[in-house]
């Protein structure tokens, strides 16, 4: 499962759609669309700046969400990555009703696995993607292994997006083997993958990867962006 994270409607709707189309035509299996939130506490400087710039230039979370239904996603799966308040503000049940036919899942970095029930108990039907991190204990991994969501999001680094990851570290491959022992779900590595070399290394240990920061850096230039996303495959 190879995927790209894109900041929704950044720098503007037209440029965003060009980048989105580039990802789809390159053949990625999924796209993760970031819906801007003013307090992106899990994001590093590149994505946080892009989000702030988008909001500053008038991008609305509601417009990004409304636009999801018009994207030509082909065979790719669509996920939304955003913060809890965006969903809460939209209305938890209403969000689910409006987007359950569009989205394969939702990635919310400030909702830990234990609080997925907070959403499901309110009628949320879109799968929330569980996380496993270097801090996850065995009991956390066992719980994540049986949660909803068609993959486990493995965060390879301690920290925020844009950090660097040592993909050759035995700790990472051991941790992924540990997860695999408890689940048949795909394991997708996020955080810290910036080029083809990293992507290839990620695929040796995991079932997929998602590239965020390195792609967002190029999001203002759709031609360069298109070349970059092709280069990772």
């Amino acid at each position, binding site marked *: 499962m190879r995927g790209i994270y894109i900041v929704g409607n950044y720098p503007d709707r037209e440029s965003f759609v060009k980048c989105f189309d580039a990802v789809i035509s390159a053949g990625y299996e999924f796209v993760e669309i970031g819906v801007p939130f003013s307090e992106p506490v899990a994001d590093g400087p590149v994505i946080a700046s892009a989000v702030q710039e988008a909001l500053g230039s008038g991008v609305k979370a509601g417009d990004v969400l409304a636009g999801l239904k018009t994207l030509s996603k082909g065979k790719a799966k669509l996920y939304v990555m955003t913060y809890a308040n965006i969903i*809460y503000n939209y209305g938890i049940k209403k969000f689910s009703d409006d987007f359950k036919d569009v989205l394969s899942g939702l990635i919310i970095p400030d909702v830990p696995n234990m609080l997925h029930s907070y959403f499901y108990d309110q009628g949320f039907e879109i799968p929330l993607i569980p996380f496993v991190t270097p*801090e996850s204990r065995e009991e956390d991994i066992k719980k994540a292994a049986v949660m909803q969501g068609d993959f486990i999001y493995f965060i390879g680094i301690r920290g*925020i997006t844009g950090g660097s990851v040592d993909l050759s570290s035995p700790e990472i491959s051991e941790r992924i083997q540990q997860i695999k022992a408890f689940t048949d779900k795909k394991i997708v590595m996020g955080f810290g993958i910036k080029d083809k070399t990293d992507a290839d290394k990620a695929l040796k240990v995991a079932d997929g990867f998602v590239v965020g920061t390195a792609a967002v850096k190029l999001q203002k230039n759709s031609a360069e962006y298109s070349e970059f996303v092709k280069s990772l495959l």
Partner: protein
Amino acid sequence: MKGFFGDFGGMFVPETLVPALEQLEREFNMLKDDPEFKKDLARYSTTYIGRPSPVYYASRMSEEYGVEIYLKREDLNHTGSHKINNTIAQALLTRYMGKKRIIAETGAGQHGVATATVAALFGLDCTVYMGAVDAARQKPNVDRMKLLGAKLELVHDGSKTLKDATNAAMRDWVKNVEDTHYIIGSVIGPHPFPEMVAHFQSVIGREARASFKEMGFLPDAVVACVGGGSNAIGIFKGFLDTSCELYGIEAGGLSDNEGDHAMAIGKGRAGILHGCVTYLVQTADGQVADVHSIAAGLDYPGIGPEHSYLHGTGRVTYDKVRDEDAVFAFRELARREGIVPAVESSHAIAYVLKNKDKFKGRKVLINLSGRGDKDSERDI
């Protein structure tokens, strides 16, 4: 659900932080009733902070306004505010957990100074995050933090105030959670912080209640300013089971217009920020709105989840005071009683002065949560 006050609260944080928060919850629940920990905390409270702080009858103000005004003197604490109650307790917890580094966010700088102080006291490495705008308006506290040996990280993101400092501190904690404890300074953030900070600040209410018991009566009303709300929860805890009216005063700023105030309850609605469901000042689109207060410590878009809950139950009345009224109260207390209050606490004083007819002839306890040395150099 665990960590909720009715519909408010929770632990809305990156998964990376969950083990650290669960460890903190375990340690807190174990240590808060542990005789050794309590003895340690009590010793530092008396010999280092200077507790108990007295309740002072403000006779000249009382005579002028026709209200019996009593002040709980948290301004007399070491470092000049109630913040030290919580930081010293959390620093002790940090030592018990075996961590060597603490981080904090600060708005007015009082929590930053209190954290830097306990770091020096216990030999802990300390980094304090502060918005660049706040740092410019609270220079004395910036200087004190540096003097105490803390590393000060100025935050230039967003509105360059407390919420941005909080974001930066959260990012640091995610990266360094193994050896670092984040001392949150108010009754906000993910579980167990709102409950834990309230517990450590409840000493204010317990002492005030004891002082009134000695006087042979209870106050008719208790008033405290509310940003995150730690001083308010601290004093309310002593009176929740009485018939005393309780008032939490939010920063009304310049006007009711968006960007001019910091009234999370007065003008906000429920949302999720910095770890919990609570009232938030936000845009229609769910973005956290810019807020303003003349008091850096109140300049925060949210409020502690327990306050959101108490608002819902009606046990506490939440109201507002404008900047100009807080400044009037700041000067009034200085000139009539010889006490320079923090501009944050001045909001609580101002509420009583503005509503003297409502409180006429009644006994009102105001939590004087901090002293105004930091504000007296400003042009207010």
